[in-house]
């Protein structure tokens, strides 16, 4: 029982993290305004000094399209002109596929936990 709870907790946490990651990057990659429009933090950043802005830019760029890893996640920012998936709508179906695969991975994790914590019979101690 205890082994199953520990495994279960680990898989649940990993699953939640995966879902959050996939979900948040999907949303980030789909919201056209965030990529091309003014950044959400604009009202605050406009009141800060240029030096502070430069320091913050090192950690959190003003535009989502300037995030260091965004090219790996979303193909919209590659190429000469950043493209929204509104221009290539079949990219948007990726989210649904990813969610499907995430569910299948969760199922395999569930089955894997059951397999690893199964009652083993071996004669003798």
């Amino acid at each position: 029982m205890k082994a199953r709870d520990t495994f279960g907790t680990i898989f649940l946490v990993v699953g939640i993290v995966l879902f959050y990651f996939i979900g948040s990057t999907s949303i980030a990659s789909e919201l056209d305004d965030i990529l091309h429009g003014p950044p959400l933090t604009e009202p605050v950043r406009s009141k800060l000094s240029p030096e502070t802005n430069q320091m913050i830019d090192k950690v959190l760029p003003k535009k989502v399209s300037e995030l260091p890893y965004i090219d790996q996640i979303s193909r919209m920012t590659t190429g000469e002109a950043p493209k929204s998936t509104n221009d290539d709508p079949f990219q948007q179906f990726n989210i649904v596929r990813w969610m499907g695969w995430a569910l299948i991975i969760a199922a395999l994790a569930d089955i894997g936990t059951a397999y690893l914590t199964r009652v083993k019979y071996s004669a003798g101690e």
Partner: protein
Amino acid sequence: MYRKFLSLLKNITVSFEKMINFLTTQEHNPLYFHGAIPLYIFWFLIFSGILLWMYYIPTLERAWSSVNYISALPIIQKGTVSLADPASGIPYGSIIRGIHRYGAAGMMIATILHMLRVYFTDRHRSWRWFPWITGVALLVLVLFVGITGYLLVWDNRAYALTVWTQSFIAAIPLIGASLSNFFIAGDVITDYTLIRFFFFHVGGAALIFVLMWTHFIRLKYPVVTPSRSTNFLVLGFILVAAGAIPAINITQELIAKYPSLSDQAAYIASDAPANIGSLVSNVRYDVWYMFPYYLIEKLGITGAWWVLGVSTILLIVAPFYPKDRRDNIAEVIEAKCTGCTFCSLDCPFEAITMQDRAPGSKFKLIAVVQEARCSECGICVGACPFQAIELPNMDSKAIDGDVLALLKQGV
């Protein structure tokens, strides 16, 4: 001979499942939930179906464009969405349509696999005839509801299938012509036709619920929900399908606009709006769902009727052959029965009911066995603390005697 054949089928099935059991353990084996999976998928079909229902318009002019509006691209739109603007559409509509479309495909596959497993493990005969017959009715109904769902889109494929269905029904002697007119609500295809299809589809789905109830009614504690891992697997596959094969209306303009769309997708997705009077030559559809049309294409209408008719008759008579001996039906010993209801609660086939005893009796209730439903399993015997219900060929005293004899034997 036939019994040997059934026994061979069971052998093959159990050997296969033994391999799956090793990997997944018995609790998570998806094949042990073969009955629950179609019902599980059905819930998603109802949910997505109701959402699609909100926007579908069942007229010849607007059916295709309303489906197009629902499954418009891109999935997530800029600006406002309004019915007045033909370029806009429902957000995520094509995903809901995809869940509906591929869920239906999954439900049909799952239903057929369920039927095969029940048949292979010899669990359809004798006292189990009622769930089997209602199951055959459910299979036909799921097929019918699925076909009408195809027709609602009213694209070229739907029109072709409608024409074929008309000829198919009209081939029935005597009543064929009027049945065909009933099918399309008139002599020719009009707006009423689509409304009729719509009723068949939604009303048929409601009828599936009713038939499901009859399917379960002779089974106590029916398993209606698969295990969690199986739930995730099924939903995951439906979403992968919805994401991999967009459920949209593919026209030549769309293919020109998005070259990444291959012609393959049109095999599964829908195509251009129907043109009454002109049948397209190359109609493509899911063979394993629309198998009656495959039969019509390959064998002609008469051939298709023969195959479907004979298969249905074979399915209906399957539970009644070969007959079992039925000489070990459970018997209640009135003098010992206290009416405790344990046997009635435990009988898996609802074969034991509790009835009132004559007034003035020592106990209020007595167990009564309905012989046609008894499976001769003895679960009621195991439940009875008073040895008041027994299988005639193997009563409790004899079993106790066996235990004592075995112990006396020694090693």
